[in-house]
């Protein structure tokens, strides 16, 4: 699994809408550029990349940005179709409790909040090109401003689909740090990477491998307590529901 990572935590300058526009537009431009596969495409991709980068630089004090890329051994159409139905996202994104699709481009998201509360927002798809990219963002009034994008392209040599996912979360009021911690745990970057690995597991193997619930001899008390208090990785709400069923 190849991945690019980037974590930006810069001073908030009150330019969030501009930033959203730069990232979303830049991402789309870059996607289009890459898909052209010619000289103009390279120029467009570079320009798009620059816009995304500029957008990131406008980031807030505790804003976070993650990028992960990985290869999934299924055709682009199938991978795109699964992701485009946002209701599937909670099956592999451990921070999401539910996504309801409310229209062609609109959806309602519910995520884990601090102390068992729920964080929610309305989102809309701002740009998409079937089998190539989807860009979405939260609408004003969200508990947590966020933008996400995913690009799809065929991997060479019949290796399936390369996807590149970028996620951005920005404070929309107080408690951002606590909300992010509740959603993504101690190590957000790792959580997101594991979530996307789960996406690959579902697409390829049809299930997420696990050892939760298997037999073992008596664990040491220290290890059991540590595991209960600070799980290395939390399963998705959907997995928990399946297991308790």
């Amino acid at each position, binding site marked *: 699994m190849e991945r690019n990572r980037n974590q930006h935590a810069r001073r908030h300058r009150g330019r969030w809408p501009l930033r959203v526009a730069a990232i979303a537009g830049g991402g789309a431009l870059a996607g289009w550029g890459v898909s052209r596969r010619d000289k103009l495409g390279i120029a467009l991709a570079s320009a798009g990349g620059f816009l995304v980068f500029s957008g990131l630089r406008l980031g807030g004090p505790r804003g976070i940005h993650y990028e992960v890329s990985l290869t999934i051994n299924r055709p682009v159409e199938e991978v795109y179709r699964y992701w485009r139905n946002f209701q599937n996202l909670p099956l592999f994104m451990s921070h999401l409790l539910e996504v309801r699709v409310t229209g062609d481009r609109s959806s309602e998201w519910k995520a884990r909040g601090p102390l068992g509360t729920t964080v929610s927002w309305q989102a809309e798809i701002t740009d998409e090109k079937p089998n190539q990219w989807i860009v979405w963002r939260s609408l004003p009034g969200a508990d947590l401003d966020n933008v996400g994008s995913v690009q799809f392209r065929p991997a060479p040599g019949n290796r399936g689909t390369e996807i590149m996912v970028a996620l951005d979360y920005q404070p929309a009021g107080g408690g951002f740090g606590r909300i992010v911690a509740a959603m993504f745990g101690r190590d957000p970057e790792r959580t997101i990477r594991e979530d996307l690995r789960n996406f690959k597991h579902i697409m390829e193997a049809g299930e997420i*491998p696990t050892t939760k619930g298997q037999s073992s001899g008596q664990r040491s008390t220290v290890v059991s307590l540590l595991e209960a208090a600070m799980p290395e990785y939390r399963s998705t709400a959907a997995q928990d529901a399946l297991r308790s069923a």
Partner: protein
Amino acid sequence: MKALCWFGKEDVRVEDVPDPKIINPRDIVVRITRTAICGSDLHLYDGYIPTLAQGDILGHEFMGEVVEAGPGVQNLRAGDRVVVPFTIACGRCWFCEQKLWSLCDNSNPNAYMAEALYGESPSGLFGYSHMMGGYAGGQAQYVRVPFADVGPLKIPEDIPDEKVLFLSDIFPTGYMAAENCNIHQGDVVAIWGCGPVGQFAIRSAYMLGAGRVIAIDGIPERLQMAREGKAEVLDFNRVDDVVQALKDLTGGRGPDACIDAVGMEAHAATFPGLVDLAKQRLKLAFDRPTVLRQCIQACRKGGTVSIPGVYGGMLDKIPFGAAFSKGLEFRMGQTHMMRYMQPLLERIQKGEIDPSFVITHRLPLDAAPDAYKVFRDKQQHCIKVVLDPWARAAEMAA
């Protein structure tokens, strides 16, 4: 159920643990009829493999009867008799499609641990540390087998357990080690380590056309078993220099292929060997690569070094200049089990080989803690231990 659990270095115990159950749709649960201790289990016993936890159930060589199949398993049903391969594979990722089953992308739930150490993760394994998946192993009365529609091989009723049990690991592992040697008719193959994998490598090398097999070990009964497999033997305690001895035996050329069937815990009473031992004891190194060094130095120019022995970390003082100058080819890795199980079952059915020849000890599961020690210390002429999870100690002794 009863299961052999790891509690620390040289501390394994048979405990009462909960019975396994179906967790994922492609799981089955198997009632184990025979299970074995593998040489690679000794690396766990000796504490050289990181990421084990107290209470882990060990064991990756087992067979038995399906008692329950998940809704995603169409090809097996309760009552089927199966041998289960030690590597777990999803059958649908790119690596599985290329038949590189032990590199499966989807079977290790703790892939991130292996990635931290190795950059990438191989497939999940039964009972072989959390870094390799943390799956409960099969030195037990029952086991849960994930992705069971891909791995387990159905066995006809008329073959006894002992003839097919080793299709779970050591026979395919010895066979792949020989296949990796790219043997041409008449080649000379040298095999370090006459434990069970080495024994199967000897016989497999002849199956694949080797002209001569030279087997190297220091334990008389293992050399004797190698001789019974038509190998010429070299006792490393009786020669000054194994590399020179191999040259002398091969008209100065060196063997066409060299198999390291020893791995990380090689024994060597030489100065570099003692340095390796000291570093391993001080946790400065996982591995003692004496045999790998000898393989590289002994192999003829343009030859192949095949490595079924397990290594875990960074290896010191590997004569890579020699490997480069001689243009050697290296082949290694966990066995791609599903390539070999069916063809090797057919060889057993045709009577070309009876793998039970390696068994020296038949014991109840309750005796496993002692058996680990006996096997590790090579006491009682021990070469291979097979365990019956259902026998009571008294019955076996009678």
